[in-house]
């Protein structure tokens, strides 16, 4: 029988969508039963007490978790978030309930062998409850006690060849879409870049050296499945520079209705017969496509690679072959001064291992930001404060019209003295010789 009555939570076991309440109860029961005789290193009733404290929140409408305090593993400044319950007497099983962030493999692929090892470790030394995955990408383990942290870390690194993720004013665990492993749109090896940067910047990931958090995310194409443009301080988005490859036979097959448009994504409703003008050509934001008889033509020079036509006709159109990525800086959620999307700072850069050119840019940026960023200032806020041009300068990037959506609307250009003939050092006597007061 359950330790706590949870009449409110029980309501959330109803309905078709997988119930997290049922899932926690399942874990709770498993621990109580302990069929495999696990020597649980944290309270056996941790899941029971979690349900209990959650039911209390459902009753009084307030959270019962407290600020973290500093907990972690030796030599690391992140990867563990301290968490305590504010009703420890009622719910001793969750009195200490720290989060552990485990660095996920790029693209979230797993072998079951590895997953089972993770499960065994976490069942043994923690609550057994996880998030697959946290918002930033980590495997998130919910709830363990302080003495278990070093033990978990030791087993993770020694037995599972896996490290903790980032938290605090660190580089956060980089994430990518599944890239070339299973997507024809990926212009770059997103997983590889993600993995490479993760390894390269381990030190920043584990030891706070920044003014605030910093996230890398890698999207293989402008579809942006990992939302790097909205969620990462430095976003990489794969692009091609040359022409979209066209299979004219497949174009005809779409027109003839032999292939469903948009990979069949709209098959749940009758949207009428496919019309290439209505669904593709007229929806092209740059109007760079047209039909000549049965042949689809693209003026690639005017294409802005928005992906619509390729998404709509995936069997007929493919990304180009001269590929690389754009880099965008400074995305963040609204806290504190409003949301920012990533701002384009590099329209195109080659993106091939060992990514030397990209890393050079990253290091110039880090150096500047560590020097100039204010405490708890995201790099996008620093960029807003110092101006986009300053960022281009410190990264030694070319000024390219592509970095702006439009030029400035005000005439307040901060000219530098060396740009103005004659300099700024002028004498009032000289001026007054021409202009009497």
């Amino acid at each position: 029988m359950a330790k706590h009555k949870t009449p409110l939570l029980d309501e959330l076991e109803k309905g078709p969508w997988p119930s997290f309440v049922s899932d926690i109860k399942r874990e709770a029961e498993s621990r109580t039963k302990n069929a495999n005789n696990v020597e649980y290193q944290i309270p056996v009733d941790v899941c029971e007490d979690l349900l209990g404290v959650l039911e209390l929140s459902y009753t009084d409408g307030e959270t019962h978790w407290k600020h973290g305090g500093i907990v972690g593993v030796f030599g690391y400044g992140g990867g563990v978030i301290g968490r305590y319950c504010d009703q420890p007497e009622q719910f001793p099983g969750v009195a200490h309930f720290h989060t552990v962030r485990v660095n996920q493999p790029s693209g979230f692929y797993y072998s079951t062998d590895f997953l089972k090892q993770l499960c065994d470790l976490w069942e043994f030394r923690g609550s057994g409850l996880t998030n697959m995955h946290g918002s930033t990408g980590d495997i998130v383990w919910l709830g363990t006690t302080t003495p278990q942290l070093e033990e978990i870390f030791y087993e993770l690194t020694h037995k599972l060849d896996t490290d903790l993720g980032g938290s605090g004013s660190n580089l956060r665990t980089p994430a990518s879409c599944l890239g070339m492993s299973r997507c024809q749109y990926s212009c770059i090896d997103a997983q590889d870049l993600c993995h490479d940067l993760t390894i390269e910047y381990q030190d920043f990931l584990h030891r706070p050296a920044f003014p605030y958090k910093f996230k890398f995310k890698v999207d293989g194409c402008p579809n942006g499945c990992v939302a790097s443009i909205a969620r990462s301080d430095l976003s990489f988005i794969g692009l091609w520079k040359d022409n979209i490859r066209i299979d004219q036979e497949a174009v005809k097959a779409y027109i003839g209705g032999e292939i469903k448009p948009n990979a069949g994504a709209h098959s749940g409703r009758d949207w009428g017969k496919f019309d290439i003008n209505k669904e593709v050509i007229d929806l092209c934001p740059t109007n760079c496509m047209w039909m000549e008889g049965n042949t689809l033509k693209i003026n690639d020079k005017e294409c802005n690679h928005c992906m619509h036509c390729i998404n709509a006709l995936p069997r007929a159109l493919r990304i180009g072959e001269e590929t690389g990525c754009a880099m965008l800086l400074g995305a963040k959620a609204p806290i504190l001064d409003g949301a920012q999307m990533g701002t384009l700072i590099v329209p195109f850069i080659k993106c091939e291992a060992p990514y030397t050119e990209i890393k050079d840019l990253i290091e110039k940026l880090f150096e500047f930001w560590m020097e100039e960023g204010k405490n708890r200032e995201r790099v996008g806020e620093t960029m807003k404060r110092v101006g986009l041009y300053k960022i281009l300068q410190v990264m030694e990037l070319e000024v390219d019209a592509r970095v702006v959506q439009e030029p400035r609307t005000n005439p307040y250009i901060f000219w530098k003295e060396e740009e103005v003939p004659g300099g700024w050092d002028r004498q009032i006597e000289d001026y007054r010789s021409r202009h009497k007061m």
Partner: protein
Amino acid sequence: MAFISSGYDPKQPMKNRITDIGPKHFKDFLPPVLKNNYGKWLYHEILEPGILMHKAESGDEVYTIRVGSPRLMGVQTIREICEIADKHCGGHVRWTTRHNVEFMVDNKDKVGPLKEDLLSRKHDAGSYKFPIGGTGAGVTNIIHTQGWVHCHTAASDASGTVKAVMDDLFEEFTSMRLPAPLRLSMACCVNMCGAVHCSDIGFVGYHRKPPIVDHFTLDNICEVPLAVAACPTAAIRPTKVDLPDGTKVNSVAIKNERCMFCGNCYTMCPALPLSDGKGGDGLIIMVGGKVSNRRSNPKFSKVVVDFVPNEPPRWPTLVKKVHQIVEAYSSGARKYERLGEWAERIGWERFFEVCDLEFTWHLIDDFRDPAYETWRQTTNFKF
């Protein structure tokens, strides 16, 4: 329970220590069909909701079945996933960025049995463990945060609100009848872990009462200058307070009418709690964001419902408002049109009308200078 050492010796923390190794290499985990065709994919098709086929240049095919998950799952469930993957998928499985689980097989014949197996598995109380869907022009899983399960700043629960909304939208998860993909997200406070600020529909827990000052605690555990600096609207100033017992403490005073309830002070100083279960806390609904560059630039979400009360366990008002928005979008938008593109095309004034939502003064931006950009500087509006 006896303490069992991993081998770590607290007296010699550096002994045999392994650090900075990062994650396992992802190529160790790819199913053979993906490894063999890495970077050589030609196209894909969505065969039915939740089931994709990718074709490689080699002629190889991989079939993927995508299933929803509550994100919060115990290792029992993960082991069950492993069991399924071992049985059908050669011991490989993957998650998506939106907390779905993907089972992949390299032959079309394996799809049917896998599908049947997945749908047969339900929790005792009745919910699916592995509902199939989340592809194409439909609703996929909701990105969300911890809520009352695990977060100290949560103004609402995450898992509960998500469960309630997804139950209501279940048919949109298992079908592809919307004009375009509809991405939902949930954040339990305005810190907005997750991408609520760029989602088609997002709901966000938030506070509406200024912090209570716990003077005694503040003097003990917080630094006054940090608390003052934490406030983006300069609503917090240092002060000295006489406690009832006669002690004088260093604390802060709050100018309530300047508070915008962001909770940044509470993040910096735990002696300034904001949460209020008696009518203060609840949620807002934001809509119209997107991160894809397809056809139009990425967009931020806009606040369209200024307050929904916390109504645990099933948040009926929230569910109803989200439902209204999805219905109106579904019937009003054109094929390929994302929610935000639709709202912009018909005009936000019309959006409120067709969604039967009230436009209140709270929805007029008054935060910082860029607010001006959201006001209307044209006569191009609809009556």
